């Protein structure tokens, strides 16, 4: 199969991402925005039910979070913006129109920077605008064969941000990396929970192919129904392959909407352009136009947290970490917050990074939780690492203690004390152990003195074993070398 990136064709991909905003209430009424798990149609009122006579009132927090996103995506914020009605009939749309934004969105002309195989890529953002989510429909089995459909309007009116990307992406890997970076950004700035499975973050793609080197755009197909990063990759690969096959046989691409079928692992035609919707956009007369003052823009900008790219660069510069480690530690705000808390407690950054990304992350992965959810808080990890740095416990013991603390939630210091795991650093005590080992291992002692360095390792290991891992390895080393002088050494 010839796919994009192949010799003849170049892919042109633009993503449209819908993100539910983390507001308390819905976009135009005071019902809860967090609708999951509530009995059907219980999270509703005359406004979001679209009852005759009810009127929308815009949620200012929704506008603020959209501005926040737009600024994080380097967009321009016009002074004048308005809501429009997008008219169409569907049972999940109680008013028969969706309040959205048409020709004067809250923001436009931004960009998102991300990495693909360590290579920086910048893709344009056409616009970020605000609209309302629809309700949900529940069918008996498949929609085509179901004899009824149940309407649940708990989700209707939840604030939904649409982020339209420029067709700047050239491979499915770029598209995936764009989406990963965008999701990371939205979670970072606290506007969206990043949950693609539950649909609070949704992605559609506009996909076309053109002859490599051509500047003209080919006929595009809109691909929907991709609800994970993996399905985005697979759906785009499949769709690009399908289009390449048609073009190579001299065929023409039909402009249409296709859905990704997880079951069939292919895109399936849903609607052709001839049946395209006529949305009859016009300005929403129930909501006055909005003026966004420069002060408001600057106040939102001032409230933006450090963004992932900036934080990653700072971790390299400020803490001297390798880029890979910095990338891992800044993947999610909670990871970097945890790390910075450990460092703030006085731990060497490199040690903190090794432990957080190594042992602790391993334990978390096995338990399928995130680092901020585990029972070892950053201050407890710092206390443990402080004992490692101060040679009060060995690294081996520290690993065991971390495992116990992870399981029980007990404090590492308490675990070390109650189990007598503190490191053995008394020269007299260690000498007794060294003597016992030398008595039993005359051969190894002779080998070492005869020039075999590896023999010393065996002796150190034996002393450590005898101390149940508690002896300070440096002191053991020093004592053994002192007892076994080498000629000329």
């Amino acid at each position: 199969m010839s796919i994009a990136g192949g010799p003849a064709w170049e892919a042109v991909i633009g993503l449209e991402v819908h993100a539910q905003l983390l507001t308390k209430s819905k976009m135009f009424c005071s019902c809860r925005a967090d609708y999951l798990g509530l009995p059907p149609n219980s999270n509703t009122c005359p406004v979001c039910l679209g009852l005759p006579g009810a009127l929308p009132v815009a949620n200012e927090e929704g506008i603020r979070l959209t501005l926040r996103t737009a600024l994080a995506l380097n967009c321009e914020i016009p002074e004048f913006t308005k809501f429009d009605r997008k008219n169409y009939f569907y049972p999940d749309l109680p008013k028969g129109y969706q309040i959205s934004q048409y020709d004067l969105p809250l923001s436009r002309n931004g960009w998102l920077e991300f990495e693909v195989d360590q290579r920086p890529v910048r893709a344009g953002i056409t616009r970020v605008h605000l609209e309302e989510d629809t309700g949900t429909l529940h069918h008996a089995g498949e929609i085509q064969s179901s004899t009824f459909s149940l309407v649940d309007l708990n989700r209707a009116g939840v604030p939904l941000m649409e982020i339209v990307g420029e067709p700047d992406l050239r491979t499915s890997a770029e598209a995936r990396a764009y989406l990963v970076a965008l999701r990371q950004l939205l979670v970072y700035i606290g506007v969206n929970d990043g949950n693609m499975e539950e649909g609070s973050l949704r992605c559609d793609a506009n996909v076309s192919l053109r002859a490599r080197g051509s500047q003209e755009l080919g006929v595009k197909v809109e691909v929907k129904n991709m609800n994970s990063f993996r399905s985005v990759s697979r759906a785009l690969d499949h769709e690009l392959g399908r289009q390449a096959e048609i073009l190579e046989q001299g065929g023409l691409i039909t402009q249409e909407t296709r859905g990704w079928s997880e079951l069939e692992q292919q895109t399936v035609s849903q609607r052709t352009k001839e049946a395209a919707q006529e949305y009859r956009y016009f300005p929403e007369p129930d909501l006055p136009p909005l003026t966004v003052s420069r002060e408001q823009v600057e106040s939102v900008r001032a409230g933006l947290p450090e963004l992932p790219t900036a934080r990653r660069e700072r971790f390299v510069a400020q803490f001297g970490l390798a880029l890979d480690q910095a990338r891992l530690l800044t993947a999610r705000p909670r990871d970097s917050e945890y790390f910075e808390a450990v460092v703030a407690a006085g731990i060497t950054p490199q040690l903190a990074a090794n432990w957080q990304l190594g042992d602790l992350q391993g334990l978390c992965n096995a338990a399928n939780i995130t680092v901020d959810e585990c029972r070892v808080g950053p201050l407890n990890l710092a206390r443990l690492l402080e004992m490692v740095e101060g040679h009060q416990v060995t690294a081996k013991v520290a690993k065991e203690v971390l495992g116990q603390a992870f399981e029980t939630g007990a404090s590492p210091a308490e675990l070390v004390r109650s189990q007598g795991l503190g490191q053995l650093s008394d020269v007299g005590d260690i000498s007794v152990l060294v003597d016992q080992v030398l008595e039993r291992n005359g051969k190894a002692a002779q080998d070492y003195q005869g020039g075999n360095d590896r023999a010393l390792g065996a002796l150190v290991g034996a002393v450590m074993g005898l101390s149940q891992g508690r002896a300070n390895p440096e002191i053991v080393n020093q004592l053994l070398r002192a007892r076994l002088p080498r000629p000329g050494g």
Partner: protein
Amino acid sequence: MTRLEAPILELHQQLVDREFSAVELAREALERTGELDPALGSFLRLTPDRALEAAAAADRLLQADPLGAPALCGIPVAYKDVICTQGVETTAASRILSGFVPPYSATVVDRLEELGVVPLGKLNCDEFAMGSSNENSAYQATRNPWDLGRVAGGSSGGSAVAVAARLACATLGSDTGGSIRLPASFTGVVGVKPTYGRVSRYGLIAFASSLDQIGPLAKTVTDAALILTAVAGQDRRDSTSLPAPVDDYLAHLDQGVKGLRLGVPREYLEVGLDTGVRQVFEGSVRMLEEMGAQIEEISLPTTEYALAAYYVIAPAEASSNLARMDGVRFGPGLGSATTLREAYEHSRHEGFGAEVRRRITLGTYALSSGYYDAYYLRAQKVRTLVARDFDRAFAQVDAILAPTAPTAAFRLGERTADPMAMYATDVLTLPANLAGISGVSVPAGFAAGLPVGLQVLGPYLGEVTCLRVARSVEVGAGIWNQLPPVGGGGE
């Protein structure tokens, strides 16, 4: 003779003095309605239980605190059926909303009921307020109490007739292109179309959101001012309601017109006025001049385009506003539909009347891609020009005088076959809606035995001036207390 002939403040005094109780007054209103309304058809439904309950509560307040009781306490009122009332069926005179019982009340209803009014019921109108004669109601045509063979005017025909026949002391209507002022003129009552945004639209079943405004219909200008005072003011549930403080509508009513500059737009006299209407209007203008007003001829040059712009913008908004009536939650059921499209077609075809379907079609067309610029966008530009005409005029004069309609009430059925003739009924009222300004229609005289209204248009938030001029017309004409034949007047 009925107690309901008295103006509100007189009734209030009698209630305070315990000459009769609010319950007695409510019973009288309900009995009178039961007797006279079968011929008139102004009410779609009465709410006697709620009325008597509210009246009993009013009596308790009047007894406990006679001096503190609001002027509207115990006063019988009624609402146009496009205004939502919690627990009371609200249909907008449409079959598609048959059985719809709102779980909430409009802000205007809450505000009036907090003051202790007695709600008698819901009033007939043209379906979804679309019409100029009340003949578009899915349930009944309201008849004019001055001549049962004539229309009440629309779309707030029921609201006008209930006042004209003295069934209610005052009512609420809605005015999108003249729907309060026109029936007020046809039935001889006062009707106020407030500035857009002065009265909350929350709970008003929308016809054209950027034009709709709720307002009072009453026997006298003072009564209308009382009701307007109660319902006006910002409402956080309506983002288009205005934050400006509410003026004192009663304080300036009797200041006369001496020194006021009143404009007469020449274009409004060129629309083919009936002779009788022209005579009443010219007589009123002379009278106001004699009272000391300075009359000036003015020009509103875009008047001839306003009607066309209105019949693009209003249907465009209506086509969207009525989309929620999709048969999923209201309407006549799905019939034999087997697909979603058939279900929509069935419920909307069965549920909506011909005029509503016509306007949905018009509006859908005007908003369609390829036609948007030529119709909707151009109409919006005309709308801006109409508003500028008024701005220029109000730089020159304090208020504008005009006939409310080119004719007095016409015969039932006379214009139903010709939508364009019916639309032209609103030619003198709808420019004020396009511009969002204030207006009052006040009875000015009679032509061939039928009432004729005069319209006072004021600037943005110019209700005080409108009401003051209207009050002078009322005093000068001296006809407010003449009763129609149905209702005890005449022979």
